[in-house]
């Protein structure tokens, strides 16, 4: 491979992937040290990269750029590396030897996606991400996680095929592999958009996310929440900004996430639906497509990764210490788990965009962009959804897990490094909320946004506090029941299974019928032949010579006639 550079910068994503593979062989302190050091090394390498196309090469006659950097890719690569560090710190005790190495391969591939300057490189890392994440789910080691990981892989391989078809078409159409801004104007671009949207958790296949992620281990879901959907947000930001369809897809995701989360009883499925909801805000921002909206989507991806990981660390601590995941079996845990409770509340406040938390300084940019563009309905739906976020994630999660009725459970807080991971991410949630300038400095466009105006603080507090009032006033309607809610995964888990069983039954019946009919026909034929081979039968008796001559003549005449026709 010839690299078009005088010096040779290392690819940060490949370092994390390679390190992850080696990590599987390490034990004890060396393993722990490597888990903490690898993401930090990756982060340093990301920041050491110069802007522009860093690696250039040629593949199959196409000019590829496996390593290219700008503000947008650096922002996402940075948050992915921070996430790998926080998740690794949280998962130091994870008994599975596969999970953290798989998670690092997964994180490294996500970084590879953000640093890919061409579609071929992007596709390779995209598929590696699917493999890494499937292994993370699978490594939980339960029957349910095995089945869920296969369903998850099925959907992502499907998405991969769609994306690959799109990329091939794009290359055939344009002769260029560079990953540039596109519009849904050709079949190839529609396929690329569909491949991206499947990973973003967009309809109609969004159910893969709440189906698979909550089956991962207590630490596995912390990793899973961050990379796949946000890598999809990144590629949409770069590939399809300003595509109006994305506004409506995003708004659907926002509302779908809230309604299904409100119905959910499993604490981590609540948070999984909440991922779809949050990615919906980002997709809407990408659809609006102004600099303010795109900055908002990018900033929101950054802050979201941290507070969603924090919420899942809090939920993961509860799962590890109690072995329970259903809200109907939890409650009253604040008595003995103060760290998980307080960190969970900080994550809940951040996801709800309370002033002084990270969500407040990021999500509001998207609403602001809708208002600036005079999109009344988009703006109102975003405001309603912001209220709904507080409802389903901001209050529902902490209330039903840590408060509500006392379940009598008195588990202690988790071990030291798990708490430290939560403290670190809690700190980041508040620090970014209080001091947003460093985050704004990382955004793809020059940020001219001031979140802390009196009007913004007052209106946001009105929205949130009255949502809180609605929650407690209507608590009776939100009572947890040991139920699940059918989602689109029902079509391939039940409907298609049922249909294929019916088809099999029909096929079996058809085969049986055909066999019986053939046997009957054969039997009749045999009997007929037997009969005609008897002394007086047609095949044995002798005919007259005159008759034979007549028949031969008839045949010859018909031959003559046929010949001239």
């Amino acid at each position, binding site marked *: 491979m010839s690299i078009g550079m005088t010096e040779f910068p290392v690819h940060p994503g490949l370092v994390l992937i390679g390190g992850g593979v080696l990590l599987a062989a390490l034990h004890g302190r060396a393993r722990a040290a490597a888990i903490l050091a690898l993401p930090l090394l990756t982060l340093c390498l990301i920041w050491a990269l110069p802007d522009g196309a860093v690696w250039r090469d040629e593949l199959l006659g196409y000019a590829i750029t496996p390593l290219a950097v700008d503000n947008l890719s650096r922002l996402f690569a940075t948050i992915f590396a921070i996430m790998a560090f926080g998740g690794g710190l949280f998962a130091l005790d994870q008994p599975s030897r596969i999970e953290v190495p798989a998670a690092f391969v997964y994180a490294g591939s996500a970084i590879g996606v953000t640093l890919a300057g061409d579609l071929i490189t992007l596709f390779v890392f995209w598929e590696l991400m699917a493999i890494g994440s499937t292994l993370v789910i699978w490594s939980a080691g339960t029957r*349910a996680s095995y*089945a869920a990981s296969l369903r998850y892989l099925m959907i992502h391989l499907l998405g991969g095929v769609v994306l690959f078809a799109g990329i091939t078409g794009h290359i055939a159409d344009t002769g260029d592999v560079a990953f540039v801004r596109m519009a849904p104007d050709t079949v190839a671009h529609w396929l690329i958009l569909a491949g991206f949207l499947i990973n973003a958790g967009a309809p109609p296949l969004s159910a893969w996310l709440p189906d698979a992620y909550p089956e991962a281990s207590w630490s596995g879901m912390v990793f899973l929440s961050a990379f796949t959907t946000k890598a999809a947000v990144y590629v949409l930001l770069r590939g399809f900004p300003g595509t109006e369809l994305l506004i409506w897809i995003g708004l659907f995701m926002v*509302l779908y996430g*809230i*309604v*299904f989360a*409100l*119905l959910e*009883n*499993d604490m981590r499925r609540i948070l999984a639906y909440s991922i779809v909801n949050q990615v919906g805000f980002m997709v809407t921002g990408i659809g609006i497509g102004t600099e303010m909206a795109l900055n908002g989507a990018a900033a929101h991806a950054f802050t979201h990764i941290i507070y969603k990981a924090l919420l899942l660390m809090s939920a993961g601590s509860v799962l590890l210490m109690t072995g329970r995941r*259903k809200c109907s079996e939890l409650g009253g845990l*604040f*008595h003995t788990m103060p760290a998980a409770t307080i960190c969970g509340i900080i994550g809940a406040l951040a996801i709800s965009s309370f002033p002084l938390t990270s969500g407040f300084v990021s999500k509001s940019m998207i609403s602001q962009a809708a*208002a*600036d563009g*005079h999109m*009344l309905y988009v*703006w*109102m739906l975003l*405001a*309603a959804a912001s*209220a*709904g976020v*507080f*409802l389903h994630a901001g209050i529902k999660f902490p209330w039903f897990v840590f*408060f509500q009725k006392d379940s009598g459970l*008195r588990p202690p807080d988790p071990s030291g490094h798990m708490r430290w991971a939560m403290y670190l991410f809690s700190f980041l949630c508040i620090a970014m909320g209080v001091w947003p300038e460093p985050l704004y400095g990382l955004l793809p466009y020059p940020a001219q946004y001031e979140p802390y*105006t*009196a*009007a913004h603080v*007052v*209106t*946001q*507090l*009105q*929205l*949130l*506090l*009255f*949502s*809180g*009032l*609605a*929650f407690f006033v*209507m608590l009776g*309607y*939100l009572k947890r*029941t*040991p*139920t*699940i*809610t*059918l*989602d689109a995964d029902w079509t391939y*888990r*039940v409907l298609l*299974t049922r249909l294929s069983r019916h088809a099999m039954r029909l096929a079996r019946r058809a085969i049986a019928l055909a066999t019986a009919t053939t046997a009957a026909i054969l039997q009749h034929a045999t009997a007929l032949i037997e009969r005609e081979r008897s002394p007086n039968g047609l095949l044995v008796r002798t005919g007259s010579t005159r008759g034979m001559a007549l028949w031969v003549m008839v045949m010859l005449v018909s031959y003559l006639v046929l010949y001239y026709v």
Partner: protein
Amino acid sequence: MNRHWLDDPINMRLLWRVFLYGLAVVVAAELAVSTHPHFAIDAVFGFHAWFGFLACAALILAAKALGLLLKRPDTYYEHRDD
């Protein structure tokens, strides 16, 4: 079992009262602060308060209605994924 201060009904009532005062304060604050409306509807007094409340009520009712149709016991998939 040592009781947490949140287990005390007196403190809970106090928290509720603080919350209700908070609601009143953020609505009253609109008298002192111009909210820079972008449209006609958010110029209505206390828009974010009543809109937030109504939006949440609507979302809860929508979820409830959807639940009637799509809720199943949580053992529903247990024997179907083999």
